[in-house]
């Protein structure tokens, strides 16, 4: 030992004091205010951002922001819904200087995003899903979502015209309100064509489980389903498996028609570009960001894939008519008299829930005609 690298007590004190000063600097000086003109926006995805599905829809929205003056984008994909997402948010804030963060997956909200909201009160967080509540959650948090159930209703209309077996199939991830609304909307759309149609649902229990999704698709088709749709993060496996078995497909999240051009009927797609543009415009203009943003087909939050070659004339007509009706606003998918598949009344005669109805965001039932259970 030469002692060359050993610190004297005085050196140690000096060094640590300097370090502490550096560490305190961001708190002492209003660095964040100086960044107002050039803002950084963070996007966090639960899976790969080119998955033909949920994450791709968000990443396409994020990509549309590139080129806006003064806005830079940071993205991280494959972030699990665990404490990992907190670390990702912290590093986006501390290292990249993000002032607005979009954690896009359902499970990021509680407790992860809420913890970060409390820790960084100057940063704005907007979560994709319907969970923000004015009474319970901080004002720098918020949520945005689209009424894509309308899109699944339109899917159902086309499926109802296309099915020969009168059985539809739905591969679902978890029984949460948004998924249940999609399943119910799909069936009710099909029943607007023929009230004898039923829809079999299989829950896989996870947002992304390739082998189980393929097994579920096969099981549905074995039981006679000839039109299949899904609500999982990446519909690629379901679309390819169903097309391989000769069934028709209604897409979800993004446009999957390149995967099965002959069998793809239509699909309910997100149009997040519109939503993200709106938030960022407010940010650039220095306006407060809305906490609770919702929109459907009429607002451009949701769009439909172009109808495929297998869609018949009658289906095309009813699709166009229903879409036009929805664009006028006030269309309700859930309207009485309607029972759940356990026999409970969910809407009485004359009762109707328009897409904006807050009751729909706590849906916990499957309607009559859906074969499946929420637990």
């Amino acid at each position: 030992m030469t002692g060359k690298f050993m610190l004297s007590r005085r050196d140690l004190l000096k060094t640590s004091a300097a370090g502490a000063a550096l560490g305190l600097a961001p708190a002492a000086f209003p660095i964040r205010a100086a960044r107002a003109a050039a803002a950084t926006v963070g996007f966090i995805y639960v899976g790969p951002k080119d998955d033909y599905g949920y994450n791709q829809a968000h990443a396409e929205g994020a990509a549309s922001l590139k080129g806006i003056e003064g806005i830079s984008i940071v993205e991280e994909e494959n972030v699990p819904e665990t404490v990992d997402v907190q670390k990702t948010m912290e590093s986006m804030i501390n290292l990249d200087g993000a002032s607005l963060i979009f954690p896009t997956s359902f499970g990021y909200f509680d407790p992860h995003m809420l913890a970060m909201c409390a820790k960084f009160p100057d940063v704005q967080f907007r979560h994709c899903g319907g969970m923000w509540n004015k009474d319970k959650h901080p004002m720098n948090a918020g949520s945005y979502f689209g009424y894509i159930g309308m899109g699944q209703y339109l899917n159902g209309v086309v499926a109802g015209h296309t099915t020969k077996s009168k059985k539809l199939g739905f591969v679902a991830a978890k029984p949460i309100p948004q998924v249940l609304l999609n399943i119910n909307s799909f069936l009710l759309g099909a029943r607007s064509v023929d009230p004898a149609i039923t829809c079999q649902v299989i829950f896989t229990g996870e947002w992304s489980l390739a082998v189980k999704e393929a097994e579920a698709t096969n099981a549905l088709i074995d039981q006679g389903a000839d039109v299949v749709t899904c609500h999982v993060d990446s519909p690629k496996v379901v679309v390819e498996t169903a097309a391989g078995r000769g069934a028709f497909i209604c897409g979800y999240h993004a446009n999957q028609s390149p995967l099965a051009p002959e069998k793809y009927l239509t699909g309910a797609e997100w149009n997040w570009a519109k939503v993200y543009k709106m938030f960022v415009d407010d940010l650039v203009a220095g306006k407060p960001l809305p906490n609770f943003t919702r929109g459907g087909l009429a607002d451009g939050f949701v769009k439909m894939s172009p109808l495929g070659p297998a869609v018949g004339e009658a289906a095309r007509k009813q699709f166009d008519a229903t879409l036009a009706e929805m664009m006028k606003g006030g269309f309700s998918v859930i309207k009485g008299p309607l029972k759940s598949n356990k026999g409970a009344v969910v809407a009485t005669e004359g009762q109707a829930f328009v897409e904006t109805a807050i009751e729909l965001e706590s849906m916990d039932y499957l309607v009559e005609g859906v074969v499946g259970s929420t637990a």
Partner: protein
Amino acid sequence: METTDIGLWGVPLAMLGGAIRVSTPFIFVSLGEAITERSGRINLGLEGTLVFGAMSAYAVAVMTGSPWLGLLAAALAGLCFGLFHGWICKFPKVNDIAIGIALMLFGTGLAFFFGKPFIQPSAPDLPAIPFGAWSDIPQVQAALNVNVLFLIGAALAVFLWWAFRNTRIGLIVRVVGDSADAARAMGLNPNTVRLLATGVGGALAGIGGAYLSLYYPGSWTERISSGQGLMAVALVIFARWNPLGCFAAALLFGGAGALGPALQSVGVTQGYYLFYAAPYILTLVIMIATSSPSRTLAGAPGELSITK
């Protein structure tokens, strides 16, 4: 598409079809691991090899248009991973389990890195043989559409079972696995044997990965493996290092995995999370039923670091 109502018959049929469809990656990874462990090493990195094999098979199949070249690429990539594991482990005081875990993370990470551009394109599938052509029922035809890799895996299991008992190479692998000292006395170099055994094990795991991305579910995504590689390593212990046992255990896991979706499709919709846990509950039950505090596991190679 014509359909036939098969009702409750859908459950056994789905389990049969599921056993055939889902089990192939388990078969290849567990046979590969059986060879490696019989030589006295544990390679926990096969999950990484599986994912990297899936990626390289898909990538090569997309670029060349030939699934067979993809399969070859996956086997070669797996061989490299196996040889790398075997090479590091020959150094003294290297822990094969730790290296395996490192290689598992390395393999998956590398696969994600190189796999990015291949998530979107579609690759040609490996061919399947329609053994169900005799039936008029489309569901039976679909269930009996057997991929060639499944047949190769089945043949390989029988061959390995025979070879371990009846061939000189099989004897060499077993001697090295049971006693390195005895092997040295016979003039064998345990490190070389283990290097080759781990290499072959890796190549088989790579082929298992190719099945995932090129046949079932048949696409490359970063979530393609839900832990099949790790489960297959556990299957080897479950099967007592016997290749035929590996094959049977793989079929059992495949069939049990198809149970959850199949039951939901016939209307048994309550408690599906419990049905999804069926394969794991089954493993626990069999492990508990066959274990004993007074003796070591029958058939365990003596040189394995977990049994030493």
